[in-house]
């Protein structure tokens, strides 16, 4: 009996690995795969009990809303036509779905559907707007303005533009993370073609005064681009009110699918862009390539849901965020919140715990998925450049953690995170010699450290 079970299990393993035993007949191997699948289903149920960390990193990415997945599935399975095929029903139905999605995205930001271009994400949209606008108006305008706290893709694109011969000014930010409007006005020159400032920062959550900046840029006849990936669907956005010319939107930040985004390009007054991707002239010639119908449909559904749920989500996120911050700040001393306390999106909280190293706190909080900076800079051990730009001390910049709260966060998750955080910070501080010195009353800043 034992021998037979062993051979049977070996055959099941082989069938699962895809290597077919030539001695088995077709019927026999079919029976084996069915039994194999039963084993797979059994093992999946056991896995239901396995614990995964709590997700508190909504700025990195967001889980897909079940309603979005429901909208996408038919287009992954049945309606698989290319939306640019003009000659048959598969193409027509796909195209109408993409146009419906375009309208849903446009309604969320107060734009016209013809002004929306589907891209592969906010990074591509940022690249398109900066490189596209700068290169198109190269003959007469040579200057680009951005801030020091922008997303890496914007900063890197500007660096490439510098290598191409453009003049780029990286505006500093005040200690609360906001830019100085006076300074921006003074920096704008007659040959400035583009100002790029993000709406909500992904690391510290500050909300820039986009309406004022937009009006300023319009009065000086400069194009204004904003990276609104973290803002769209979370705070009310209106491109006409704000006088924004270009806006980048990301799908996977608003509970939509990964791999899709959009760029809003104003038509009146027209913004001309030199396209990055050349080809068949899709998306008004600005972005050639087949529009991925299921992703676009999911993105549109996510935008529509975000518009409906905006108020409800905002209220809830504010309540949970206040709860988190109040509890932590009341229990442990020497905690600093980075960024302006009022001009912010409440769901992105960046706290610096003095005398505790950020990475060690992250490792100690292994049951909660958090990050200490943005996902694109988390590979390096350098403190985040955003915190350096707002003037945080080196030691505080190293000890910062970013808490992200979103649509699916529950009160219990927040309470658990707070409890664990307080416990681990206290434990790490007990081990810290700096903390001992502070308790004894020594002023850390007055110490002259020597190398030995």
């Amino acid at each position, binding site marked *: 009996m034992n021998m037979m079970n062993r051979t049977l299990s070996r055959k099941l393993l082989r069938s699962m690995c895809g290597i077919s035993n030539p001695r088995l007949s077709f019927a026999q191997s079919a029976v084996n795969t069915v039994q194999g699948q039963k084993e*797979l289903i059994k093992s999946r149920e056991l896995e239901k009990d396995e614990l995964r960390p709590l997700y508190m990193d909504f700025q990195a990415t967001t889980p897909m809303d*079940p309603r979005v997945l429901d909208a996408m599935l038919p287009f992954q399975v049945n309606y698989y036509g290319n939306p640019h095929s003009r000659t048959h029903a598969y193409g027509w139905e796909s195209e109408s779905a993409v146009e419906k999605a375009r309208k849903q995205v446009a309604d969320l930001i107060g734009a016209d559907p013809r002004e929306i271009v589907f891209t592969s994400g906010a990074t591509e949209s940022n690249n398109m707007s900066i490189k596209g606008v700068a290169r198109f108006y190269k003959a007469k305008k040579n200057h680009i303005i951005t801030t020091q706290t922008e997303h890496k893709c914007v900063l890197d694109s500007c660096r490439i533009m510098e290598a191409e011969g453009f003049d780029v000014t990286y505006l500093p930010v005040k200690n609360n993370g906001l830019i100085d409007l006076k300074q921006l006005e003074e920096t704008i020159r007659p040959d400035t073609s583009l100002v790029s400032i993000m709406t909500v920062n992904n690391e510290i959550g500050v909300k820039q005064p986009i309406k004022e900046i937009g009006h300023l840029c319009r009065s000086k006849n400069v194009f204004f681009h904003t990276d609104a990936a973290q803002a769209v669907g979370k705070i009310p956005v209106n491109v006409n009110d704000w006088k924004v010319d270009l806006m980048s939107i990301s799908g996977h930040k608003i509970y939509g699918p990964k791999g899709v985004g959009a760029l809003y390009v104003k038509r009146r007054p027209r913004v001309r862009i030199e396209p990055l991707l050349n080809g068949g002239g899709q998306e008004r010639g600005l972005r050639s390539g087949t529009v991925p119908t299921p992703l676009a449909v999911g993105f549109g559904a996510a935008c529509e849901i975000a518009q409906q749920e905006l108020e409800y989500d905002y209220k809830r996120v504010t309540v949970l965020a206040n709860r988190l911050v109040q509890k932590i700040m009341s229990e442990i001393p020497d905690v600093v919140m980075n960024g302006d306390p009022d001009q912010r999106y409440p769901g992105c909280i960046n706290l610096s715990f003095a005398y505790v190293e950020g990475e060690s706190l992250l490792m100690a909080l292994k049951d909660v998925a958090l990050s200490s900076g943005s996902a694109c800079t988390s590979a390096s051990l350098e403190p985040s450049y955003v915190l350096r730009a707002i003037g945080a001390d080196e030691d505080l910049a190293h000890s910062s953690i970013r808490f992200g709260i979103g649509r699916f966060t529950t009160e219990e998750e927040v309470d658990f995170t707070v409890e664990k955080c307080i416990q681990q910070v206290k434990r790490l501080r007990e081990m810290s010699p700096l903390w001992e010195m502070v308790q004894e009353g020594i002023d850390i800043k007055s110490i002259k450290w020597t190398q030995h």
Partner: protein
Amino acid sequence: MASCSRTQVISLYRMLVKESKKFSSYNYRTYALRRVKDGFRENLHVDNPKTLDTLINEARENLALIKRQASYASFVSYSSFHWPSVFFSKDSC
């Protein structure tokens, strides 16, 4: 109209709650339950029969959606994905 009757609405609410409990993901389950409860609570005093009709149809569509999505999660298996063994160390931090 029969669809506007109180018992119909209550039975719809009960079915939504019953189906929402079947989500295997903690976050989806708690969100669905919370959203259904808050959604019905905020529309408690709606009188206009047209709005009531739209809301009830919306609720019916959401019920079908939740049924589909909750059952979808249960037959998606990730057993082909293997965690590297370094994640299964027994020592706690």
